[in-house]
């Protein structure tokens, strides 16, 4: 049963209307600003990639509501285990844009979370963050902290063994971990119907005696509601957010090879930003001018951020050797000196 609060046209469902009443104005506005900023940011990243300013990039357009809505329900003390496609989550919880840009520019410094954050560096090998999130949730439970760990992953990730092992562990030890799947219909080019014979991701929870929700992932209110509720359970929950990336898998991908324009058009009509804007405008929360003005501010911030990152000076030799071990071992010092000697004579540069 798909949970839906906000229809593609911007009208609230009955459940949506009740939920809307429970929200403070600040929350309503935050969600709107976040959705808009995340989209701006994401589009900028795609542009910068084309301009050669950053490396290969994984766009999130179309998935903003799933990311913003879920992340907005989190606490600062929650553990967040993102995949590589969670720029909207990062933005929502307050990871500096410079960090995100740095990461996609191949600068390891972008992986360092700000002090106090439990935002784990993006995970590239599919599904591997799930058992780790289980462990982090376990640590919280053992310390009696009230908080959760959330693991973000895609529909393709459900086919990996780590998905299964993580859900099994979480349910055996009854740990406060949310498994948040953005089912965007594809693992690169492979549609979910070829990924799995079960029709939904959510129904897999039963195999672990685990609660599950299936939610319209393009509906920021429903996602926010569901994650808030799930978070409160302090138990393992599987959440499937049905969504779609309207862009390519990454900037190196050509999505027209494996899906039709028609399909994309259907999903463009279910745009997560449009519907929430319609709601906010019709509720008189903001007018178009205000929105455009705010966009200008965000754009300025983004441009500052990329300039910041472009100033990058490679930290050599330390960037290669520091933090591999807690101290640089004797044997590695020779290698460190070698790099230093090349950096000094200028034969290594950026």
């Amino acid at each position, binding site marked *: 049963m798909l949970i839906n609060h906000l229809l593609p046209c911007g009208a609230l469902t009955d459940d949506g209307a009740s939920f809307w009443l429970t929200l403070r104005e600040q929350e309503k506005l935050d969600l709107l600003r976040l959705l808009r900023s995340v989209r701006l940011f994401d589009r900028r990243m795609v542009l910068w990639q084309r301009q050669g300013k950053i490396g290969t990039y994984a766009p999130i357009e179309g998935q903003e509501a799933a990311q913003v809505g879920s992340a907005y329900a989190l606490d600062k003390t929650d553990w967040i285990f993102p995949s590589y496609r969670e720029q909207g989550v990062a933005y929502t919880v307050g990871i500096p844009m410079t960090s995100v840009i740095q990461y996609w520019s191949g600068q*390891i410094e972008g*992986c360092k979370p700000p002090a106090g954050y439990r935002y784990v560096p993006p995970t*590239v*090998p599919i599904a591997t963050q799930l058992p780790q999130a289980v462990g982090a949730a376990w640590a919280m439970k053992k310390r009696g902290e009230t908080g959760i760990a959330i693991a973000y992953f895609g529909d393709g990730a459900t086919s990996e063994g780590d998905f299964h092992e993580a859900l099994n562990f979480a349910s055996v030890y009854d740990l406060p971990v949310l498994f948040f799947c953005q089912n965007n219909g594809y693992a690169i080019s492979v549609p979910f119907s070829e990924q799995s014979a079960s029709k939904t991701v959510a129904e897999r929870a039963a195999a672990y005696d685990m609660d599950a929700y299936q939610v319209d992932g393009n509906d920021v209110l429903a996602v926010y509601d569901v994650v808030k509720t799930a978070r409160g359970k302090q138990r393992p929950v599987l959440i499937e957010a049905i969504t779609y990336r309207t862009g390519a898998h990454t900037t190196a991908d050509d999505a027209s*090879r494996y899906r039709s324009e028609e399909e994309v058009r259907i999903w463009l009509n279910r745009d997560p930003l449009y519907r929430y804007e319609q709601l906010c405008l019709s509720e008189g929360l903001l007018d178009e001018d205000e929105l455009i003005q705010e966009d200008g501010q965000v754009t300025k911030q983004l441009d500052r951020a990329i300039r910041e990152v472009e100033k990058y000076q490679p930290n050599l030799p330390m960037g290669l*050797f520091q933090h591999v071990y807690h101290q640089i071992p004797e044997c590695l010092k020779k290698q460190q000196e070698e790099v230093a000697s090349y950096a000094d004579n200028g034969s290594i540069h950026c």
Partner: protein
Amino acid sequence: MLTMVQSIADAQRVALEADESVLLLGEDIGKNGGVFRATEGLWKQFGSERVIDTPLSEAGIVGSALGLAMGGFKPIVEIQFLSFITPAFEQIVSHVARMRLRSQGTFSNSMVIRAPYGGGIGAPELHSDSTEAYFVHTPGLRVVVPSSPFTAKGLLLGAVECPDPVLFLEPLRLYRTQKEEVPADHYILPIDRAKVIKQGEDVTLIGWGAMISLLKEADQLLLEQDISAEIIDVQSLSPIDEVTIFESVKKTGRAVIVHEAPRTCGVGAEIAARLSEEVIDSLEAPIKRVAGYDVPYPLFALEHAYLPSTDKIVRAVMELVYFQ
């Protein structure tokens, strides 16, 4: 004239045409033609029964490929990047490498596992690692690395023909950098032979894959210093063709081994160890390795500092030539 990635697609086309039992399995290899287009056009030509888009499940892919091999098929598996072979590591080392032995020759374990690998192209994290040594240390497997479009096709077809399981590593950096005349039909290069690609007198430069072009560049620089280098393309990392390497080093008296993988316990260590056991009395200098450092492959902003370079190779050779 084909690029390496085209010649690899071509080799697979030829293999699919020549032998009905050949099957392709992997993530995004069908409709999408592979994320690098290494299976471009094959799904269209051969259909989804032979060019199979699989779930995102490397243990499932390799494990079922082994079952298919046992059942008489010849799977060619694509692992999207070498780092993503680790979920299938158990299937490979505990089963694929051993099924022939365990069944005393009854069940086939013949398959090719293809994987793009290596750095230098500004790829995301865990998309540039060179982990060939894990597999060279695993008896029962073969490990083969081409260094040009022409060798890629011939070696891949050699791997397909081989009754043993072959890990076929494709240097990402070479996928599109070079075009070469590649015969359209079926031809095979031996997958158990190293190749002396340039004769020389003073030092043997030993490498494979993407390192070969680097060795050639270094050789140009060395020539300017009147140093004559012999270059060996190892090609077959396991089982390794040690004799070709020994012969060369006996002649030159000096060896520099170059690879991208971390130095410690890399394949360079094995080559150095064999040299130090078998031809030590011919050596006029220490054996040098120019390799990745003993750190995880860095995010790409620093990969230029991590990787072997002509500078590093030339410096190593100089140290050997002026060694006393």
